[in-house]
């Protein structure tokens, strides 16, 4: 069998990329189809939402036709898609703004939260996972497994509340709900929408510290789940690599145990780890929905739940599409990258 050339590999990659994009497209279509079905069939009659309960039959009919509701379903769906792609997510009842602009406005807060939580997950979870896997059966190993078990069993909204009670109520170590103390609102000009960054840019140390004290608890709570997951995965990757022959070979060359772990085994798990981190990020977006509600954190999650209470279907569905799309996108991308950089590639 002839050696696989770089040309072969490139072609396979291209094919894989294309089928990945195809799957992505298909899934996005599925998502929009579901939101379309929900919005059209399950919620309040869209015509009534416009004309009100007391409209006459003629007004009702006129609006029905204007909204395109007399067309076949498929056509309605394509109309819906067209609007989405044009950025028209409808109007929010709650804020009276276009849903899209609301989403863009609230997105940075969620991004901030999820990013810090993931950074915690990486910088704490990875070393802990490596150490746990290297000393399998040791106390750190058991600790990681227990932390992981708790992470899969504790409701995030409850943990958030308990955290608020303990660290804010009783100990006063952190700031309370919201991103800033009330007095600090709207002082900093928003370049990125991320208060931590904006306050640094403006040199406002007080505000930075205040923002930090407010974000640390919700990010910490979310971070816990990230740490639990990343540490578990790192541990199991490590255990697998440490049983490989090349690690023994490194020891034979004179490497110390930890030298073999970090210099030899760790580079081999970096790629699968990156995909794990991505998956963790995606799942944090979901956790953020409940966390933001508990901490009154003005992000996408809170937007969605508030719209829920206000029966603002446009906003709920718009938020669902955005969160759903990011979730799906990150997940599928990570899956794809994992298979592309599979160790199988090495022996090919």
């Amino acid at each position: 069998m002839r050696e696989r050339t770089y040309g072969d590999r490139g072609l396979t990659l291209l094919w894989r990329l294309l089928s990945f994009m195809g799957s992505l497209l298909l899934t996005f279509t599925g998502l929009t189809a579901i939101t379309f079905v929900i919005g059209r069939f399950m919620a309040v009659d869209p015509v009534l939402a416009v004309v009100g309960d007391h409209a006459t039959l003629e007004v009702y009919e006129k609006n029905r036709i204007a909204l395109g509701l007399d067309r076949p379903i498929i056509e309605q769906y394509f109309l819906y898609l067209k609007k989405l792609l044009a950025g028209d997510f409808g109007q929010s009842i709650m804020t009276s703004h276009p849903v899209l602009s609301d989403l863009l406005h609230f997105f940075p807060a969620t991004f901030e939260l999820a990013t810090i939580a993931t950074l915690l997950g990486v910088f704490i979870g990875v070393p802990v996972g490596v150490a746990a896997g290297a000393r399998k059966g040791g106390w750190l190993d058991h600790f990681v497994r227990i932390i992981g078990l708790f992470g899969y069993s504790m409701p995030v909204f409850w943990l958030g509340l308990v955290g608020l009670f303990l660290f804010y109520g009783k100990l006063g170590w952190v700031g309370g709900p919201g991103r800033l103390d009330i007095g600090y609102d709207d002082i900093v000009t928003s370049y990125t929408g991320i208060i931590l960054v904006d306050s640094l840019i403006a040199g406002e140390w007080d505000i930075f510290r205040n923002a930090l004290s407010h974000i640390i608890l919700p990010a910490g709570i979310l971070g816990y789940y990230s740490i639990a997951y990343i540490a578990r995965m790192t541990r199991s990757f490590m255990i697998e690599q440490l049983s490989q022959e090349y690690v023994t070979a490194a020891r034979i060359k004179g490497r110390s145990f930890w030298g073999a772990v970090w210099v030899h085994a760790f580079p081999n798990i970096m790629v699968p780890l990156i995909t794990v981190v991505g998956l963790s990020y995606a799942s944090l977006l979901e956790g953020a929905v409940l966390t933001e509600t508990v901490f009154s954190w003005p992000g996408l999650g809170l937007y969605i739940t508030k719209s829920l209470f206000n029966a603002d279907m446009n906003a709920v569905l718009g938020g669902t599409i955005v969160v759903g799309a990011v979730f799906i996108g990150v997940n599928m991308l990570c899956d794809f990258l994992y298979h592309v950089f599979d160790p199988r590639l090495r022996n090919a």
Partner: protein
Amino acid sequence: MSNTEILTWREWLTDDAPASRRQAVTGNIYRSVRAVCSNSAAVSGLVMIAMLILVAAFARQISGDASPIAQDLATRLGAPNAQHWFGTDELGRDIFARTVYGARVTLSIVLLVSVVVAPIGLAVGTTAGYLGSWVDSILMRITDVFLAFPKLVLALAFAAALGPGIENAVIAISLTAWPPYARMARAETIAIARSDFISAVVLQGASTPRILFRHIVPLCLSSLIVRLTLDMAGIILTAAGLGFLGLGAQPPTPEWGSMVSSGRDVILDQWWVATIPGIAIFIVSLGFNLLGDGLRDVFDPKST
């Protein structure tokens, strides 16, 4: 007595060469039960879940006279004391009784979701795996699309549209929970479909539904149960999340998630109102996770 050796129960069950189908089946069950019992994680999980079931079944007896819905505004937000073991909530209702009766709600959600999700997943997966070709492709595409969706957010959207209530919450959760079972059933079916005994049954003239239902599905059951147990915790957490947001079971029905939510405003002073129902959720999820981990160690050690 005759010359035949009389085996003790233990010997009969662990006999390597069972003489009858009944002996083989009960022997297998015995071996599985022993394996599970030797796994401490599984045992602890089993104990927790047994407690959940008992508490739900004997809620009346356990909570005695206390009613989960009787309000008494005079004693609202009372701390735990001899009369109200877990204190009272913002409407003066006994939290202990509400937690105990809440077990019923949790249990029913878990059962309902399982009952919906397992058949759908099995049906889709076994059909796709057995029939193959374009049926497989289409079914798996649909499964993959649903698999990629974020559970909570989508359940939120559904529940928002359908309105609150346990049934809608169950539907919402089920809609995103079924895909893994379809995938699993399909993988198992593909492995089984190649075996000789399936060919034998086909030659005997069995119809496809019969093959699927009577022969393939039973073999998928053990990994299905393991997976289901592992997923239970996640389902409970999602249901509690929906309850926290006011979807799911409606007042005055005591549901742990909504109980946590109602305690939210008073968390700083009357911490028990929100904390205690949350502990209940935690214990039950932990129980299912432990049991699931234990079952997986026993029945399917290679899966991650």
